């Protein structure tokens, strides 16, 4: 049975000490995390710097959008082949406008999907949390087995936690 333990701190240095204490206690990276109400400089708490693959999403989306737009603009002009001024049926300049817009639309939608997925959202079981985190407190949260919970609580308290919550 796993347990989620949260230590609350009002000082960033204490939160960083708590992260160090958890590392020193042998908890593997990825089992503990820091929660804040505002972005902090990367590595401020000695946390694992998260890697992401967000940049692949817009590229993939743009390719899908471009392909769909190419099909739509080509198919509609061929389906109703209206010759204008002896020009070719497929009007490239006009198609470019639609190709561009649909590629960009698809890139934006896939980027948003990418942000949500890479942020690990939606998170239906967020675990232990405290609303005061969005008021300025810093939370250090760890998910561990029941028999390791006391070690984690000791590490969090050792760094000066003002409160410990468990779920």
């Amino acid at each position, binding site marked *: 049975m796993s347990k989620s333990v949260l230590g609350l701190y009002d000082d960033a240095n204490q939160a960083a000490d708590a992260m160090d204490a958890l590392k020193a206690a042998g908890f593997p990276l990825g089992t503990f995390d820091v929660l804040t109400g505002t*972005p902090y400089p990367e590595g401020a708490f000695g946390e694992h710097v998260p890697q992401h693959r967000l940049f692949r999403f817009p590229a993939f989306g743009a390719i899908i959008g471009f392909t769909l737009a190419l099909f739509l603009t080509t*198919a509609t002009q061929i389906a109703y082949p209206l010759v204008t001024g002896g020009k070719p049926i497929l009007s490239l300049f006009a198609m470019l406008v*639609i190709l561009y817009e649909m590629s960009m639309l698809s890139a934006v939608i896939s*980027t*948003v999907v990418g942000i949500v997925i890479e942020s690990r*959202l*939606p998170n239906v079981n967020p675990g232990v949390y405290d609303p005061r*985190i969005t008021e300025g407190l810093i939370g250090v949260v760890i998910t561990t087995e029941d028999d390791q919970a006391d070690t984690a609580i000791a590490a969090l308290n050792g760094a000066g936690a003002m409160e410990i919550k468990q779920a």
Partner: protein
Amino acid sequence: MQQRRTIDQIHTNRVLLNGQLDTPKWWAPTVITLGIIVAIGFFLIGIMVNKGLGVTGLSRPVYWGLFITTFVFWVGISHAGIMISAILRLSQAEWRRPVTRAAELLTVFSLLTALMFPLMHAGRPWRIIYYIVPYDFARGIMPNVRSPLIWDPVAISTYLTGSTLFLYIALLPDLGNLRDRTTGWQKAFYTILALGWRGNPRQWKLQTVGGILLSALMLPIFVSVHSIVSWDFAVTPAVEGWHSTIFAPYFVIGAVHSGVSAVVTMMALMRWLWKWEDFIRPEHFDALARLLIVVATGWLAFTFLELIFAVYGLDAPEIELRDMQIFQWPWNLLFVVFVFTGYIIPVGMWLQKSVRNNIALMFWSSLFVNIGMWLERFMIIVPGLARKTPFVYTWEAYRPSGLEWFILFWSLAWVTFLMLLFSRFFPLVPLFEQKESQTFGDSIKIGRARVPAIVREAD
């Protein structure tokens, strides 16, 4: 950031969430009044749909009038959001923080409003579907992708969808904050919308990187949208004054001028109505006014370039049109008002530091700009159609009806109504951006002076 001050997170929450947690007394009566105006507007639109466009002043040869002018006006206003939010985000301008959300919101609601005008203008709105959706496979009739009237809805839909998603992604941390501050049905509402936001380093990193990436994607869309709107006119060789190669950049810079001015108007109202003096400060108006001086001067250059390009060709009808626009009654009066309100008065004011730091004067100068910019669109669209041309026996026939005027003012009420409704449920200033500014802010000593400074991550 000379005016930076230290504000703790509890105070930031209390003040910036006052619209959601402690609705101001003026909110309900204002929304009800605007709601009545909006309802009357919809009733009049219903009458117009029922009776046809005969209830407007539109007739040959002026078949594009107040509705299309107002459509271009609102598309222009919509350029505020991405101009402010994306460019300032990409350039990491510190003064963007209280401005971005309101600007993005203005984009979304003004685009929604702009989209309604071509629908009304069509007279039979449901027929719009015939040229957007492939509808008649039996006869093989498809949307004509060669027409700018197809490019236009495609571009605007792209911009509207992108802006709405951008707005939502940037709202996620504040939705988490609202979830933490509310109870009952409100908590359930914000819990669903916040998607389980917790504020760990991964989520913050994605918020930052995603914001920059979306800004970079939205910027070219923003340029394309008003370029394509300008091509509604510029690819029409039959109307003098419309068929101009300079229209795309001219429309884009005009849109930025009117859009950023609308953001100034909105910021002044936000500061007064919600009492956000700690967050929306004179320094923000000062920065926006400096930006506007550059944008407005660029726009003025394009205005006169457009005129010079038209006259330089010595094409008689084109010269006659310009003569009519600038020297003949009543167009000459409109032209003077347009130049004075669009540039001379506001820029003359913004050159004074005392004006840039005076919020009331900035408010009024920004209103002047948008009066001028609406007139600019009217002066582009209508005179070219109204001028007498050979073999045409009706001209100068356009007198906007009372209904058209009401719907123009209705659109202002409608956008304000939507903004106020939004403000009841969502914060107009991004709280996490304000808090980030405090976290990254510090003061350093240079010689004997202590000055505010901001830490910036290299990425």
